[in-house]
């Protein structure tokens, strides 16, 4: 019964989204307000309907309805309640449904919040949002149903019965037994509850529980700016309206995507047991590419707001951000690319590929059409090579090239070689480190220089003057880094450019506050609050830069100075690594965890200068289907001692093989991530409305420009 309700919810949501697409399109052609309102109502309705479907699946998971094949795949009777809930996005079908919920949710929120201000864009916004939703709702309902159930059918009287998953009840089918007593003499020896798979053990981690929803929110969130950009192109309202309507949506999507990437890295570090957090795996890259293009867009859109430039370019960026989301979804969900965590092979590859292609082609065609009509002409040309515009364009070049090289490495080259060279060539880690490191270096340099450049044009001398203080402080920082042990020219250069970017960010915040203190006689804290309140995006942006800087410090430290050793130790045996001693004390075999898994745990002491500094317990978790090696970690500001129990005497624990990593400064990656999130939140927060007279003063041609004039800007 539950499954039928779920299917009905999904079918209604699909119907509503199709209706909304058509009605909104007709309303645009016929200028019919009545049709538009009707389309909007249908579009709004999709969210509660999708929520209903997800609620039904959740109930089925909690109530252990193993006849539903999805429930059978991702849970078993020993699964605790918490993981039953998170199993909602634990595998393909459920995560697609979850994707639909978030997509309809974003459409719902944007149609409610932007309805009045952006009325002219609304018809096509609904068209594109609902077309995308209809596609994913259709896939989920018809091809990857989370509500398919197992049925027993008899193909022919002479043949044994078959158990298969079907969405509709086949004629003459019966439900398989839920539980069979041992020794039962019927056809079935075991019931569904006894054979259920259970959630993949690797996914039982807090990072994995919130990482997928965050990523989906990030992916799906880019639908909003995409739909507005397409609506601007389709409707001809090519002012900055669509940008103003979507800049916060873009930031929110970017926030979730960043959070998803960081949590994914943390999960890999804590669970996958290879001592790292980023492996250039195709699935990771599929999420990283939209982040890169989206970051380029967040920057270049500022230029359009300030100077009316790069209009065509911005359209391309916003469309390709969502296009990258669709491509990544297609590549990871269809099993196109071999990857350590790729979803199962499935039939949805072709439709998803076509949908990606159609959306991208429509987008590009609309841009070229409007451009051909001269409607995307820039209002200013480039005035000088050191202007802020030019540096922002260079920043865009860096991000887009990064996106392209990552795409080429993970998808382009393998597909190209298979198609045209009759062999498969993959590009390994060496490719990524060689190609991306110089590009990331360029990113940090621009991050340090661009905020100091003025709009319009700037001379070398003025730039030199502005750089004196930050460069001097950077030099001090590099000397400190050298004293702390950084020796090679490469890492010192790396730390130099990363520090410069960070110092410039702090310096700019300080200059803003300083100007405020002079003009308004405010104290430093009040001045800081005021500038952050008045121009959240600018100063929030600097906080984001600081986050990226701190991540950079962590990445350089943990890649350039990582130490690694594998040693077999007897009891009280010690391994020496990077100034630490790691002592194997004892082994606890066969410990039973709450959910019934068995754990073999090593007791390990970390010593420094002969003094014990930490007790850690690396362990191996044994699940019926697989074993998972969970590291023991001693974390300090200097870095982690990361110990894996990778082998042991299984009878008495007399020896253990420890795989030990020392990862210097690695925690800066997580702290930087946190700061980045805070900065993005500041940027995305609703601006205080400026007093009336300031607003009037700031109003220039084409309506109110972003923000309020700031001292020192």
């Amino acid at each position, binding site marked *: 019964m539950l499954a039928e309700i779920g299917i009905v919810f999904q079918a209604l949501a699909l119907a509503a989204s199709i209706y909304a697409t058509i009605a909104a399109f007709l309303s645009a052609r016929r200028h019919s307000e009545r049709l538009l309102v009707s389309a909007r109502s249908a579009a709004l309705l999709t969210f509660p309907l999708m929520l209903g479907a997800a609620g039904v699946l959740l109930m089925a998971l909690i109530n252990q309805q193993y006849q539903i094949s999805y429930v059978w795949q991702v849970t078993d009777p020993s699964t605790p309640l918490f993981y039953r809930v998170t199993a909602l996005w634990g*595998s393909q079908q459920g995560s697609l449904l979850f994707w639909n919920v978030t997509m309809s949710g974003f459409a719902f929120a944007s149609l409610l919040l932007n309805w009045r201000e952006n009325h002219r864009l609304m018809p096509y916004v609904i068209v594109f949002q609902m077309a995308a939703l209809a596609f994913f709702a259709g896939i989920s309902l018809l091809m990857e149903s989370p509500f398919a159930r197992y049925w027993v059918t008899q193909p022919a009287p002479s043949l044994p019965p078959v158990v298969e998953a079907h969405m509709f009840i086949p004629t003459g089918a019966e439900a*398989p037994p839920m539980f069979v007593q041992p020794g039962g003499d019927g056809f079935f020896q*075991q019931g569904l509850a006894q054979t259920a798979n259970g959630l993949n053990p690797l996914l039982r981690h807090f990072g994995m529980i919130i990482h997928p929803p965050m990523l989906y929110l990030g992916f799906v969130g880019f639908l909003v700016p995409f739909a507005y950009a397409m609506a601007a192109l389709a409707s001809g309202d090519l002012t900055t309206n669509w940008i103003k309507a979507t800049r916060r949506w873009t930031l929110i999507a970017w926030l979730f995507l960043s959070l998803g990437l960081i949590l994914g890295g943390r999960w890999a570090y804590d669970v996958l047991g290879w001592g790292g957090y980023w492996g250039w795996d195709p699935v990771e890259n599929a999420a990283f590419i939209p982040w890169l293009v989206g970051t380029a867009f967040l920057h270049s859109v500022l230029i359009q707001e300030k100077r009316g430039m790069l209009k065509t370019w911005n359209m391309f960026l916003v469309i390709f951000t969502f296009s990258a989301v669709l491509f990544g979804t297609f590549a990871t969900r269809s099993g196109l690319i071999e990857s350590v965590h790729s979803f199962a092979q499935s039939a949805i590859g072709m439709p998803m590929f076509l949908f990606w292609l159609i959306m991208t082609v429509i987008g590009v065609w609309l841009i070229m059409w409007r451009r051909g009509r001269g409607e995307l002409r820039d209002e200013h040309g480039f005035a000088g090579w050191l202007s802020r515009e030019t540096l922002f364009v260079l920043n865009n070049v860096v991000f887009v090239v990064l996106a392209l090289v990552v795409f080429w490495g993970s998808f382009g*080259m393998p597909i190209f070689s298979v198609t045209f060279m009759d062999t498969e*060539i*993959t590009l*390994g880690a060496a490719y990524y480190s060689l190609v991306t490191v110089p590009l990331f270096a360029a990113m940090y340099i621009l991050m340090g220089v661009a905020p100091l450049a003025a709009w*319009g044009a700037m001379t070398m001398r003025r730039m030199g003057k502005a750089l004196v203080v930050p460069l001097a402080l950077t030099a001090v920082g590099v000397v400190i880094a050298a004293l702390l042990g950084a020796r090679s020219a490469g890492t010192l250069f790396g730390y130099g450019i990363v520090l410069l970017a960070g110092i410039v960010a702090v310096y700019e915040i300080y200059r803003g506050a300083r100007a405020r203190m002079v003009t308004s006689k405010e104290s430093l804290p009040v001045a800081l609050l005021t500038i952050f309140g008045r121009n959240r995006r600018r100063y929030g942006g600097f906080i984001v830069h600081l986050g990226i800087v701190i991540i950079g410090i962590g990445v350089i430290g943990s890649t350039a100075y990582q130490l690694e050793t594998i040693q077999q130790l007897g009891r009280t045996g010690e391994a020496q690594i990077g100034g630490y001693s790691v002592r194997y004390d004892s082994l606890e075999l066969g410990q039973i965890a709450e959910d019934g898994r068995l754990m073999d745990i090593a007791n390990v002491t970390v010593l420094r200068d002969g003094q014990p500094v930490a007790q850690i317990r690396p362990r191996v978790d044994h699940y019926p*289907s*697989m074993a998972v090696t969970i590291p023991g970690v001693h974390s300090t500001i200097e870095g982690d001692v990361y110990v894996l129990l990778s082998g042991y005497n299984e009878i008495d624990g007399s020896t253990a093989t420890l795989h030990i990593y020392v990862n210097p400064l690695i925690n800066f990656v997580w702290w930087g991530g946190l700061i980045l999130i805070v900065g993005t939140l500041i940027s995305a927060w609703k601006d205080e409305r400026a007093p009336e007279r300031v607003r009037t003063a700031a109003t220039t041609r084409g309506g109110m420009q972003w923000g309020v004039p700031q001292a020192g800007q």
Partner: protein
Amino acid sequence: MAQAVWEKPAGEAQAPVVSRERLKFLIGGILILGAILYLIFSGMQAGARFFITVDEVVNDANYAGQTVRVSGAVLGDTIRYDEATLTIEFTVVHIPEGQDVTGETLFNAVNDPNATQMRVRVEGQTKPDLLRHEAQAIMTGTYGADGVFHVSELNLKCPSRFIEGAPGEMTEAGS
């Protein structure tokens, strides 16, 4: 605001300056493009790995000594692990091309007596949990003159786990 000061007045007198600026942008653009292409090509030379089958490694001399990626099915009986020296040795068999690697392909591969076999050696690594009979090993390394494939990076997959589909084992006693 600063932009008022730095705005250039539009006028015909400025035309040659603009074209000189244009030239600067053009040259800058070409230099950047060149640098990027150079980066990508050198990156591809360093990182490119042919992803080939066991048959090709063993029988095609072109691949000898080259770093390649190979996929093969693991024979469980052949796995030897020396914990003291951290050396793993095992034999993989050829997986036929042109199909997705499933539990069934792996089962067929290890039970095919005519399939090409290759001895594999991994050093400095502990035995992964997933290294077992009928696992798919994806190995990066070189095929030596000693007829052994020396692995620098080992990935393992067991596609038979977490398969989607009918719970077939319900009818098999004691599974």
